């Protein structure tokens, strides 16, 4: 079968450090080609070369037979290559419509922009994605999931022959991901080739036709998805056998750590309404309590509210480890052993101007600076230790965190919050963009913490993860807790139904 795109002998290095070497692969029209590999394997770098982001690289790219070398994303786009980037490339200060058409504005004879046409087009693309947004609201008003959807919408306005999707589902929940896959099938139907990157194996096998495996910047093998089973794939990626089953949790929940009664949280977007209303639950020692919810469920607001990130506006009674607790500020929460890992590592997680070690120590600086003086050695020691235990792929502890791969950045954040030695962890999508091997590592860590009597509140849009990790599951809808399931009675169907606000049918 004829290939539409060939990349041969691709090599790339950043300031002397090789990241890709001799990568070769090809893309056929109408196929979904999966790029698989560990965090830091070079997937993003590779597709960035294809998308014209990195202009200096070795090797050659052939598009429909003739050599091309893109100097900037604009050129790639003009050759029919659209990309959904891993760290979402939207402009938060701009409104939804302008973001969708950025770089592809609809203009008339004069260079006037045709707003009405754009509005109409945006309207039906968003409805294809099952979104109903106020097109004039700036994107910063919306959660990361909405931004992710907009990033997808941007790729759809191009009439592209090749669409690159770098972890497009990492911030999406099942329903939204499902809708994306339908769209992908339509695109295939139109003979459009899709490059798909994901760390979710079930997705890979759900839509992937062929798989190319990258390891340490080299293309290890390309095979039809059918010929390469999950276990084989993971072994190729990691280079060793990996047990992908969720480690068994032997948890005996103890006394309540965090108890919430009638907690209401104001909407962060400034609109006068409760994003969470009258939520009551308790989290016990050594327990993982899952909080399911679709977008707009306000589960993240619940976390923000409890953490004090939304200030003093939170109503209701909360008690933390026995004594009364009133959310006031993150600083206070952290001091009292309650930490939040948000689902938006770029906007509210990393400090991009700082090194890896300083990002790790940020939330626990007081421990490293008795009487205000920072003990630099102790700090780097601790950072190195975390880098080792989380298997973070860095050149040195004082490398700029911005130059890490997405998954590795995610691990840095986890390390930060563990370094803070909390009693209760609020984790919002902790495993976003983390590779299979590392995920199981993190599951083990979660078990270790709960075994150490810590409590975990967990949001994850990967239902299997949620079901198998959580001891109990709360399901939220439109800011209210709809249902609570024990781990034995919880099933995907029941959770989804509740999340969509439907009553249990008996």
């Amino acid at each position, binding site marked *: 079968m004829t290939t539409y795109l060939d990349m041969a002998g691709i090599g790339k290095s950043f300031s002397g450090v090789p990241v890709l070497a001799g990568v070769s692969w090809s893309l056929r029209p109408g196929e979904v080609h999966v790029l698989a590999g560990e965090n830091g394997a070079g997937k993003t770098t590779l597709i960035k070369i294809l998308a014209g982001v990195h202009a200096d690289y070795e090797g050659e790219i052939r598009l429909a037979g003739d050599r091309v070398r893109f100097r900037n994303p604009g050129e790639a786009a003009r050759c029919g290559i659209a990309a959904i980037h891993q760290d979402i490339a939207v402009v938060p*200060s*701009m409104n939804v419509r302008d973001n969708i058409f950025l770089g592809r504005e609809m203009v008339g004879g004069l260079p006037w922009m045709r707003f009405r046409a754009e509005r109409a087009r945006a309207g039906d693309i968003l409805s294809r994605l099952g979104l*109903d947004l106020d097109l004039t609201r700036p994107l910063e008003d919306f959660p990361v999931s909405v931004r992710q959807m907009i990033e997808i919408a941007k790729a759809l306005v191009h009439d592209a022959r090749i669409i690159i999707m770098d972890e497009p589902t990492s911030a999406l929940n099942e329903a939204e991901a499902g809708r994306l896959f339908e769209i992908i099938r339509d695109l295939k139907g139109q003979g459009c080739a899709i490059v798909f990157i994901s760390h979710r194996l079930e997705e890979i096998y759900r839509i992937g036709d062929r798989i190319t495996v990258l390891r340490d910047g080299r293309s290890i093998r390309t095979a039809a998805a059918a010929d390469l089973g999950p276990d084989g794939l993971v072994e190729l990626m990691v280079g060793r056998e990996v047990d992908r089953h969720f480690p068994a949790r032997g948890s005996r929940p103890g006394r309540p750590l965090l108890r919430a009664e009638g907690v209401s949280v104001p909407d962060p977007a400034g609109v006068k309404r409760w994003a969470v209303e009258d939520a009551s639950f308790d989290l016990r020692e050594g327990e993982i309590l899952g909080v399911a919810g679709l977008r707009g469920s306000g589960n993240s607001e619940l976390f923000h509210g409890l953490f004090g990130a939304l200030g003093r506006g939170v109503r209701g009674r909360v008690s933390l480890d026995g004594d009364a607790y009133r959310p006031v500020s993150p600083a206070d929460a952290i001091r009292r052993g309650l930490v939040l890992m948000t689902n938006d590592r770029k906007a509210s997680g990393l400090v991009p101007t700082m090194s890896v070690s300083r990002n790790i120590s940020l939330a626990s600086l007081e421990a490293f600076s008795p009487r205000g003086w920072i003990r630099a050695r102790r700090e780097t020691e601790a950072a190195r230790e975390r880098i080792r235990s989380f298997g973070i792929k860095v050149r040195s502890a004082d490398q700029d965190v911005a130059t890490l791969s997405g998954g590795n950045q995610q691990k840095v954040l986890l390390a930060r919050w563990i370094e803070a030695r909390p009693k209760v962890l609020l984790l919002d999508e902790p495993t976003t963009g983390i590779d299979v091997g590392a995920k199981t590592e993190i599951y083990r860590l979660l078990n270790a913490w709960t075994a150490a009597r810590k409590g975990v509140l967990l949001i994850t849009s990967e239902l299997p993860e949620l079901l198998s990790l959580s001891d109990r599951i709360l399901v939220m809808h439109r800011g209210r807790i709809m249902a609570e399931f024990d781990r034995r009675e919880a099933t995907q169907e029941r959770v989804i139904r509740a999340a969509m606000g439907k009553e249990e049918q008996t």
Partner: protein
Amino acid sequence: MTIPTGSPQDTSLRRLFRSPAFRALAALLLVVLIGSLFNAGGAFFRWPTHRDMLRHISVFGILACGLTLVIITSGIDLAVGSVLGFSAVLFSLLSLQLGWSAWQAIPVCLLAGAACGLMSGGLVAKFKLQPFIATLAMMVFARGLAKWISGGRKVSTAVQLADGSFQYRDVPPVFEAIGSKLFGQNIAVVTLVFLACVLICFVLLAKLRWGRYLYAVGGNEEAARLSGVPVAKSKLLAYGLCGLLSAVAGICHAVQEQQGDPEAGTTYELTAIAIVVIGGTNMLGGKGGIGLTLIGAMTIGYLEKILSLNAVGEATRLMLTGLIIVGAVLFQRHRK
């Protein structure tokens, strides 16, 4: 599954109240209110007062228009003041002393200004210099140019001859024309020029693709680049236009002073930036608009006018200015 866009309480009215334009207007109203309280025996209520305020603020307003474009790309241009000086001198030199016609002199000055802007723009866009330092250098350089071509003296209708004696040329019509007032002396021509500049920038920012690029670059440069926005070109456009508008301001300045002063425009950049920011455009870029700048210009203009009408003493005037600026900005902050 979708959730309804915006919630019931989020009516268009309350959104209007929260809109930047409305806040900026609130600040302006506050200042006007102060003016009608301290109206210097009714002087504040006579039209000439407002006409002169508009005339006086126009030059700064034109600079502010250019700066708005640059600031939206999250840049800054400190050179506007000295580019103003440079083109004021150049224009006077050409039209007063070399006797060029306006239709030759004006385009040349505009080009010269645009060139200055493009130079700083190039340093920012191509060589990735920080806007502050690049335009600071241009600020010093352009001032030097102004002094160099003028020989360090004001260029006026008084032309010094070889023997040191002075010969007085008469002022060319274009000076009268732009320097004059229209509609029965009721509005200064420079004010109309200012409004024209506002209109042009408005079209660019609100209606044209390149305007959207400026916002994108300022809002998230990397994202803009990944979306195929010509980042470098957009920056060049912003700085180039800013230089060009500075030249326009320079010409307006020269025709009003009827001479080209190489020191003209010193510290104007501060006032111009203040106008942009008090209007509500954000120095971090990606947000704001030219309408805000228009309002900001009037706010600052009335502020100065009121203090000067009431002949407030130097020290007091400065302190009041500081306080009122803060007051005005706080006032717009707390509009809810």
